[in-house]
């Protein structure tokens, strides 16, 4: 008892990193299960491969760095990265897409920085974008939902052929809504007209649409997000500011020129808006820590998503927007530190007379 190593406090909350990550996994569960059902066996295979690859790469990196493998793996962060990465891939993508994306996510975006908590870019989004930039064809091969065991859905054997043989039947491919609207626009067909071809709002909210493996069901993702808020893992600041700013700017432009700009609602319920707002942009490690900073970050994401969707070459911009704002996070962090008690926002002591708030 004579060597006292630590000062207080002598009581701690029950919160741990492991518990946090686990709760996020739990929150992702409904959307994941539903989408795995929707996209069937090939999606299930890809999902398992991606997560497995992430965990394996993490283990490899840890042992290369001489760090305790089992103990660190059990913080579940690699599992979560793999999970989110899988959710952002095209559901019927071949196996190597998942593996390669996992390598870039973990071995490039996470471990050179020193592992959990040290990275500055969102690993899952790095994995996704590297693949998107490198293999645009494979990464934009969408399919319409083929629920498990429904007619026309691939069985396990066909699934193996799709995932490992790369035999995706051409007939099943389908454009994503964002991609469709974009190509139509590029040949002069106004948004108002192409909009007739995309699934209606209800379908898109429920998830009956083409899209990434885990992004389609806005409702279930929202459910998970609310659960995380209830559990106080995330706060409303980032999700609301991402979606709010996206909705706002899209709506304004839609009002001005509906032929060129899709509506706010369309942007909210297309692509990865929900998944991005609730689960990706909220990644602790790569987003600002203060609430003010989170609002700035979220608004930045929302505006960039809209900008990229409308003006850049890619049909969807969630991942790029998140990465760009990741790059700005340290600066946002520096300029949005909370005001210290008894001091002005510049750090000078408050004047005595102005003590009243």
């Amino acid at each position: 008892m004579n060597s006292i190593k630590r000062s207080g406090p002598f009581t701690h909350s029950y919160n741990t990193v492991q518990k946090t990550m686990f709760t996020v996994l739990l929150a992702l569960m409904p959307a994941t299960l539903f989408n795995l059902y929707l996209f069937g066996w090939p999606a299930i295979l890809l999902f398992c491969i991606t997560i497995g690859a992430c965990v394996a790469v993490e283990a490899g990196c840890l042992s290369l760095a001489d760090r305790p493998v089992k103990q660190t793996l059990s913080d579940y962060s690699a599992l979560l990265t793999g999970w989110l990465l899988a959710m952002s891939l095209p559901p019927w993508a071949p196996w190597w897409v998942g593996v390669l994306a996992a390598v870039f996510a973990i071995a490039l975006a996470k471990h050179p920085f020193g592992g959990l908590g040290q990275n500055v870019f969102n690993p899952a989004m790095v994995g996704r974008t590297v693949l998107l930039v490198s293999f645009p064809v494979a990464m934009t091969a969408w399919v319409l939902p083929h629920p498990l065991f429904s007619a026309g859905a691939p069985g396990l054997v066909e699934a193996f052929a799709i995932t490992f043989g790369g035999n995706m039947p051409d007939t099943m491919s389908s454009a994503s809504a964002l991609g469709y609207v974009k190509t139509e626009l590029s040949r002069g067909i106004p948004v108002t007209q192409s909009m007739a071809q995309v699934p209606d709002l209800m379908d898109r909210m429920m998830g009956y649409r083409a899209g990434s493996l885990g992004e389609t069901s806005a409702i279930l993702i929202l459910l998970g997000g609310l659960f995380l808020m209830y559990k106080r893992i995330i706060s409303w600041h980032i999700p609301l500011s991402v979606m709010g700013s996206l909705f706002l700017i899209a709506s304004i432009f839609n009002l001005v020129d509906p032929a060129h700009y899709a509506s706010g609602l369309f942007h909210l319920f297309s692509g990865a808006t929900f998944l991005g707002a609730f689960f990706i942009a909220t990644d602790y490690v790569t987003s600002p820590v203060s609430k003010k900073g989170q609002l700035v970050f979220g608004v930045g994401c929302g505006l960039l998503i809209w900008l990229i969707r409308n003006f850049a070459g890619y049909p969807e911009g969630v991942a790029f927007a998140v990465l760009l704002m990741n790059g700005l996070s340290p600066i946002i962090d520096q300029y949005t530190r909370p005001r210290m008690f008894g001091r002005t926002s510049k750090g000078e002591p408050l004047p005595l007379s102005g003590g009243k708030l």
Partner: protein
Amino acid sequence: MTAEYKTIVRDGLWDNNGVLAMLLGMCPTMAMTNSATNGLGMGLATAVVMAASSLLVSLFRSRITQEVRIPVFILIVASMVTLVDLCMNAWMHELYKVLGLFIPLIVSNCLPLARLEAFAAKEPVLPSFMDGLFMGAGFTLALTAIGAVREITGSGTLFSDASLLLGPAFKFMEMQLMASDKGVLMMILPPGGFLVTGLLVVGKRMLDVRAGKAIQMGGAHSAA
């Protein structure tokens, strides 16, 4: 070869390599390494300019006053570059087409100027010439290596179009290692340039550590 020249050679090629150790001349390093051939060509052009301008600066070093030192150095480099540019255009036209915009940029490539300042402005003619030459050679080596890695991973080829650069005799160097659409496209795009350079620096460190040397932590002007 005396010990002094040995050091110059070793410094230029490895220990104090312009790209991998001093982090200078980054721009061509990134821009001209989407294939091994481009890297090689850019490196060679730079090496010629460096050797020539080191020689000239060393020759005139006693005549140049402190105040106009930089402009004169720049003038010398710029002239050499223009010379190379004109000659290449006239007599090595294929190479010229490949290297394009980046020949003029050798002028403000920080590496030649840094070597002029650090070496040629103080040392006799022959060592200066050697320094320029081997710094240039080291630069070529690094650029070719970076180019090779990027080319192999990005487009599945190695030394493609080498015959355009070096002449038909070098056709044998051109290799197709895998189908071109299997490559990781990112590697030949801007992110790949940074990535491969970073990884090669790590590689150099690993070799250095294995050889029992200390890791070099910073670039040439990292503390400003």
